[in-house]
């Protein structure tokens, strides 16, 4: 994948990449390596010296009930965000795709949640679900349900899932729509002539052809749920109640900045790094397949 | 304007030899066409003259200057590309003036030159348009305009007409010829189309797998091809080649075909006996006149009527043959015309090397 025609300058290319490489080294690689180094150290009680402890920090994490809880919470959270988000968006995209008129209008009207910050999404939905004078709380009270997500862990999970998924619907919708529109009409028409009804056509033709987009979106949504939803948690629940919504990335921040546990937090960072790398590798493997398709 | 000299020019990509050694002197003001099929190295040669490819061995001189190590922009050349290479976001005027602007020419001088080129190429109504608003022919003219305003020593053309439809190609061919008559700038033109080559060239360079098989004026290349390759490449339909054996001594020698048909060699020819390839152009197979004894009778498979002429495709002595005869003679598919071979216009080629035998 190289251009046949290139310029011959020797020094110029180095100067051109210098800004990006410099920033990448200073703010990416150096800190990342520091995180790895810190993760195998433990500070003494006064925070003055640290000593090498090998994998102790990691072992401690895996035995820490709170950390395991955080893992479970994150797994549940990302599972819900991904499945709900993708199913809803797929349904919407399929619906919009088969309409002859109005697709562009619907696109415009559904596109904007992407632009809302997760934290602001948290604020908005926090207000919707406000216990006490909140509108939903009132309705639920009429039905006999006591609503207070500050006290009830399950309710808290519900609220953060809704807030996080709400944002992603646009993104997923756009990609599904693009994927659907790139399926050649002639394929679907051929299937119809062959006698396949709309439902069968969807499962046997559309969905398989959409699978690269689907895999891509699964990875993107999981990464989103793991990493980009810090703002949602921080603005809505602060990881509570009783750590019911303490996702991994929130815990990393909390342990590192509020609880000042550098070693533990760094070890958590390293584990997160491994997860991201694995997910990105998976993502690129699937994109690779899509290109050859 | 300048002459261009190539001495021992070679090009290799790693171990692969693309050009095996070209020597050529292009005269000042000459229109030279480098012609050959895809992969023969003609574009590579042109790009080496332009400075877009590195010269592995040999020297190229423009004027009296060896330009091997000189940047394209400083060689005083201009190039017209196959895909026009117009800057899509610039207007026609800006496209044509870009090189001049870089060289720091004054706005007035630029204006003069662009207007003059626009006039020659009839581009004045299009000066403010963008390339995407132009037709293929117009874009090609803009590409030429860009070359003209530079007033270079040498014009280089890299298959400029390949992307145009047939009718437009004929039209643009004439325009290029007229342009050359008007401006008289040394021009090096690369094409795979032998009709373009024949009509435009002062001299042709016929290239075959990295070698120049023949360099000469169109008439010479046509009537005295140096190799079977040149003979078969130039001229449409292609020259016929028949295996033959020369028997007999000077004055009474004959070329004997595989089926025993004997064709008398012209009196002045002095050819040692042996196995050869006989090359005859389709138009040199003429219909036998009233009372004339034909040399061969052609078994016609398919006749292609072109209008004034008809091409008769058939077999002689087990080999395929094409003859070009007047249409009003009335020969069609599955006919058996008697043909006379104009031996004075025929050629003998060495069977192994393909070189023409001097007679």
């Amino acid at each position: 994948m190289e251009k046949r025609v290139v310029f011959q300058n020797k020094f110029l290319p180095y100067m051109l990449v210098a800004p990006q490489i410099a920033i990448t080294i200073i703010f990416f690689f150096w800190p990342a390596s520091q995180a790895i180094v810190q993760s195998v150290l433990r500070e003494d009680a006064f925070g003055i010296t640290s000593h090498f402890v090998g994998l102790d920090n990691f072992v401690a994490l895996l035995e820490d009930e709170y950390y395991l809880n955080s893992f479970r919470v994150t797994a549940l959270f990302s599972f819900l965000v991904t499945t709900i988000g993708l199913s809803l968006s797929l349904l919407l995209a399929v619906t919009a795709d088969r309409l002859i008129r109005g697709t562009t209008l619907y696109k415009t009207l559904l596109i904007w949640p992407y632009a809302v910050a997760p934290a602001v999404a948290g604020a908005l939905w926090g207000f919707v679900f406000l216990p006490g004078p909140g509108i939903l709380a009132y309705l639920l009270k009429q039905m006999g349900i006591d609503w207070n997500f500050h006290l009830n862990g399950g309710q808290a999970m519900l609220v953060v899932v809704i807030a996080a998924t709400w944002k992603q619907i646009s993104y997923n919708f756009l990609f599904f729509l693009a994927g659907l529109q790139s399926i050649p009409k002639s394929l679907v028409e051929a299937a119809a002539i062959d006698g396949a009804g709309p439902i069968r056509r969807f499962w046997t033709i559309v969905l398989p052809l959409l699978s690269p987009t689907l895999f891509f979106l699964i990875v993107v949504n999981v990464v989103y749920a793991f990493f980009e939803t810090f703002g949602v948690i921080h603005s809505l629940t602060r990881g509570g109640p009783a750590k019911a919504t303490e996702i991994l990335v929130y815990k990393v921040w909390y342990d590192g900045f509020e609880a000042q546990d550098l070693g533990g937090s760094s070890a958590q960072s390293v584990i997160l790094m491994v997860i991201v790398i694995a997910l990105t590798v998976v993502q690129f493997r699937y994109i690779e397949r899509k290109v050859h398709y | 304007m300048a002459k261009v000299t190539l001495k021992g020019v070679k090009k290799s990509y790693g171990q692969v030899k693309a050009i095996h050694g070209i020597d050529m002197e292009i005269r000042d003001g000459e229109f030279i066409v480098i012609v050959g099929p895809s992969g023969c190295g003609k574009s590579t040669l042109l790009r080496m003259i332009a400075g877009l490819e590195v010269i592995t061995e040999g020297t190229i001189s423009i004027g009296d200057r060896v330009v091997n190590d000189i940047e394209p922009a400083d060689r005083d050349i201009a190039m017209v590309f196959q895909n026009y290479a117009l800057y899509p976001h610039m207007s026609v005027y800006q496209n044509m003036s870009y090189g001049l602007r870089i060289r720091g020419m004054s706005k007035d001088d630029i204006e003069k030159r662009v207007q003059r080129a626009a006039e020659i190429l009839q581009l004045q109504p299009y000066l403010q348009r963008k390339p995407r608003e132009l037709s293929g022919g117009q874009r090609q003219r803009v590409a030429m305009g860009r070359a003209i305003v530079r007033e270079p020593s040498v014009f280089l053309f890299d298959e400029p007409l390949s992307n145009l439809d047939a009718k437009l190609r004929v039209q643009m061919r004439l325009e290029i010829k007229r342009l050359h008559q008007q401006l008289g700038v040394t021009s090096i033109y690369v094409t795979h189309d032998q009709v373009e080559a024949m009509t435009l060239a002062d001299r042709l360079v016929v290239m075959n797998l990295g070698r120049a098989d023949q360099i000469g004026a169109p008439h010479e290349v046509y009537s005295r091809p140096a190799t079977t390759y040149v003979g078969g490449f130039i001229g449409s339909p292609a020259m016929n080649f028949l295996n033959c054996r020369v028997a007999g001594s000077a004055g009474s020698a004959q070329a004997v075909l595989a089926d025993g048909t004997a064709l008398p060699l012209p009196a002045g020819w002095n050819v040692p006996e042996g196995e050869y390839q006989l090359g005859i152009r389709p138009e040199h197979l003429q219909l036998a006149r009233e009372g004339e004894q034909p040399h061969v009778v052609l078994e016609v498979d398919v006749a292609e009527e072109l209008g004034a002429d008809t091409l008769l495709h058939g077999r002689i002595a087990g080999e395929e043959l094409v003859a070009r005869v007047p249409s009003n003679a009335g020969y069609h598919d599955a006919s058996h015309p008697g043909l006379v071979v104009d031996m004075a216009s025929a050629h003998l080629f060495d069977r192994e090397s393909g070189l023409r035998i001097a007679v």
Partner: protein
Amino acid sequence: MIERRPVADAVGHLLLIVTIIIVAFPIYLAIIAASHTIQGISQVPMPLLPGAEFFTNVARALMEGPQIVGVGRGTSALTLMSNSLIMAMAIAVGKIIISLLSAFAIVYFRFPLKNFFFWMIFITLMLPVEVRIIPTYKVVADLGMLDTYTGLVLPLIASATATFLFRQFFMTVPDELVEAARIDGAGPMRFFWDVLVPLSRTSIAAMFVIQFIYGWNQYLWPLLIAAAPEYQTIVLAIGRLMRAPDAYEEWPLIMGMAFLALLPPVLVVVLMQRWFVKGLVETEK
């Protein structure tokens, strides 16, 4: 759909419209909250129609800011929004410039270490700021960049997505344009500026939309870096205010601020929708 199913069509339209209403509901509620006084909101049940106080509340938010502890008493939304604007613009513009230059170098030059640098940039895709917050914070602190715009912006400015998008686009530019430019006498930077950048207009626009939103919506990073009130961004302020102990007193104001916080990025997306969608779908590859 090939078969004509008017009923299914109607259901489809209905589904989409209902979805749009549900999606827009939180914003609507926020507008309601922002358009009443705190007493108006406190009624049970909450009013479902907007009141008259919208502009009053928004004006107070812009000029004075919420009068509670959370972000620094009295930091005006105007300050917050201008910080957000500075951050978003600096990140968007900075990223575009740096990535254009890097992509140009990678595509149009051959030099030792090229592949090494390419992989370096690629790897950064796998390291979002969230996985390296403590050491990156330390670096910024050591460089004295806490509570500065530089500290807010610089670490976020070298992203791989923009570089890859531009690289991909550059690969589609015909080689002949470079050759024609060479013969015209244009050196590499001249070619870059006169030809390549103008041709990249749509990619640049697409990247701008995406990076502006990214920069505006940053949360975790400003949380760490901007402790002083005058450097907070509006998105950050909202998040912190939500959990402030006395937030209740200033709900209308906070909701008004939430509305302000989402307005610019939403406008950018809606107005530049075409480029935005193109940019999203292109970066997927």
